[in-house]
């Protein structure tokens, strides 16, 4: 099955465009593609006529060009026929937005779609989904463009059973500066399922990190998924819901009672090197970190702070996650000390965490980051930057990023995400150093590198 027309269409037909209701999902989709994306788009409605000033095609066969992607937003009972027409007219693939299938008791209708598609080797996403969001290229979400929060193009692909969770995750990606290669809501996943998306994304050159929101797998489908994942050379992150439905049956054996569904899920994912996120927050942190670094760490963390309190907080969080905050050698401390400015040299604490104090200036951070990046006792560095400290300039993000370029030891930063610190944050992000808006998030970024099999 060729997914290229689905994810890289040059021509799109939107089926179900209404001539009377401009808020119809098909109209929203048609409008946004027509006005904002570099693809040709054609509206289809059996009644034909005019929509705005464009011709509405009564049948997909009337469109003068070959259609790569059909976006179907018509009533469920019409969809099998529409799909047949698409197949007959050589359409490349479809996104079926319409609901009213297996999720509302019409598994028969959904089964007809699958049979049609399989017979013709025709790829479709859905039904009952938002479909595809491909940044700057096109999207099939029936959400008006001005309402969407749009992450920048980037290396992370995300596949979600739920459209709502997907859109919400995109908001968080945008907030945290995580770039997106592709977002796909697979809805009822009648034909294209997580495993198919994994296969496609593992070969997709724009995608470096693959994230999934999964509600559940079919019988033995989880087994096939983790087995396939084991040979994908990219980090895979999974957020699973439905964790609380443990122990439903009165177990006749200890194993059944101890090996609850979620415990099995978590253990098997970890066994196969898939990074499991416990919640949306972890998901974003893991995606950000793994989109910047492909470097495995054991989790021996060197910490730089300007506040003793932050140093203690981050050390506690590291300990809770089993990350080490090792003692620095005399040699490391001596080298850092010698490179600090005179006023800071006397008052800085050169234990781990390295507390540069509120008097520290940019040069002191760079000196400490250099020192820890060259120290064998740590394999990654967390920088806690509090930009209200007067010695910190907006250039510091970019300068510290160069330390990673030079020394190749992963750095992650914590900077409060406020608009006035934007340039400092972008100095990191544009240079592929992950920045979290919380201390917990910075620790999670290290955790991701420790858990990543393919790093």
């Amino acid at each position, binding site marked *: 099955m060729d997914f290229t027309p689905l994810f890289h269409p040059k021509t799109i037909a939107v089926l179900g465009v209404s001539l009377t209701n401009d808020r119809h999902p098909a109209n929203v989709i048609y409008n946004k593609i027509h006005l904002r994306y570099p693809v040709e788009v054609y509206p289809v409605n059996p009644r034909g006529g005019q929509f705005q000033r464009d011709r509405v095609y009564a049948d997909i066969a009337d469109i003068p060009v070959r259609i790569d992607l059909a976006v179907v937003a018509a009533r469920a009972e019409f969809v099998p026929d529409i799909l047949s027409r698409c197949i007959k007219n050589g359409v490349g693939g479809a996104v079926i937005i319409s609901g009213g299938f297996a999720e509302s008791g019409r598994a028969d209708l959904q089964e007809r779609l699958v049979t049609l598609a399989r017979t013709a080797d025709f790829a479709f996403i859905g039904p009952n989904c938002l479909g595809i969001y491909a940044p700057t290229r096109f999207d099939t979400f029936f959400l008006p463009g001005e309402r969407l929060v749009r992450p920048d193009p980037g290396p992370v692909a995300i596949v979600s059973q739920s459209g709502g969770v997907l859109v919400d995750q995109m908001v968080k990606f945008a907030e945290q500066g995580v770039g997106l290669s592709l977002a796909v809501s697979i809805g009822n996943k009648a034909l294209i399922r997580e495993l198919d998306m994994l296969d496609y994304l593992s070969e997709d050159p724009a995608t470096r990190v693959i994230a999934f929101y999964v509600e559940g797998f079919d019988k033995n489908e989880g087994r096939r998924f983790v087995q396939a994942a084991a040979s994908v050379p990219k980090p895979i992150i999974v957020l699973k819901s439905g964790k609380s439905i443990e122990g439903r049956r009165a177990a006749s054996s200890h194993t059944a009672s101890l090996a609850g569904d979620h415990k099995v*899920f978590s253990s*098997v994912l970890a066994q196969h090197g898939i990074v499991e996120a416990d919640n949306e927050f972890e998901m974003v942190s893991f995606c950000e970190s793994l989109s910047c670094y492909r470097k495995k760490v054991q989790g021996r963390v060197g910490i730089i702070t300007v506040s003793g309190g932050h140093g203690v907080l981050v050390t506690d969080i590291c300990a809770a996650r089993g990350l080490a905050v090792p003692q620095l050698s005399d040699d490391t401390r001596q080298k850092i000390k010698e490179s600090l400015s005179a006023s800071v040299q006397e008052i800085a604490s050169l234990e781990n965490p390295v507390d540069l104090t509120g008097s520290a200036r940019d040069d002191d951070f760079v000196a400490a980051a250099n020192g820890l990046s060259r120290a064998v006792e740590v394999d990654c560095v967390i920088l806690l930057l509090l930009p209200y400290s007067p010695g910190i300039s907006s250039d510091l993000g970019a300068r510290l990023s160069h330390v990673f370029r030079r020394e190749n030891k992963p750095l992650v930063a914590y900077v409060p995400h406020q608009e006035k610190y934007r340039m400092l944050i972008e100095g990191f992000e544009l240079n592929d150093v992950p920045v979290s808006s919380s201390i917990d998030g910075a620790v999670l970024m290290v955790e991701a590198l420790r858990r990543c099999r393919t790093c």
Partner: protein
Amino acid sequence: MLNREMRDIISRSQKYGWVLEPEAKRLLSLAEIPVPDFRWANSLPEALDAAEDVGYPVVAKIISPAIVHKSEVNGVAVGLENADALTDVFEGFSRLEGFAGVLIEPLVAGIELIIGAKIDYQFGPIILLGIGGTGVEIYQDIALRMAPLSGSDVTSMVASLKGAKLLKGYRGTEPIDMPALIRLVHHFSILVLNLADHIDTIDLNPVMCTGKTCVVADARIMLAEASISIESI
């Protein structure tokens, strides 16, 4: 692959929905998994002979298709020192529901582990390793992996247990025979893959580990409800 005798055991157990302990232990031993030198005695003289054979002190357990949870009906007697004690126990057991004999085996000691399997809906055969005994569900100190397991999977399962220190020798106790445990789990994982269509869960609890051996002291194999007929494979 299951051999003829293994298939026969599953086949004749299907009417009960589970495998009687001596049958389960025979099945395990066919899969190269160490079990005690057990005997199935149908009468008191057979039981007394068996006990002489394996040597006192012995363990006696009720064999009954009606009794899955033997200890709940006082169907297990541990550490019987002589013929008199065994005679009393045998007579008590013979009055229990569905009596089909008594299992006699030597008493084995060691650190108690649980090794289990379940057929998971999403992931298929899953192997469990944990600290065993009667407190197993209280401590929940377990590790899970999808079968088949690699050697490093078993090592990492052991390492992930809170009780790992107990196994490696704690406060002067002897460390357990780790290669024996790894072999046992490895053979068990192969057996579970071969039985996947027929079973629901397996508990080997306890598995007794010492510095010299790991032996399955009790085994409970629950069969799948709609098991495909063993004759068809």
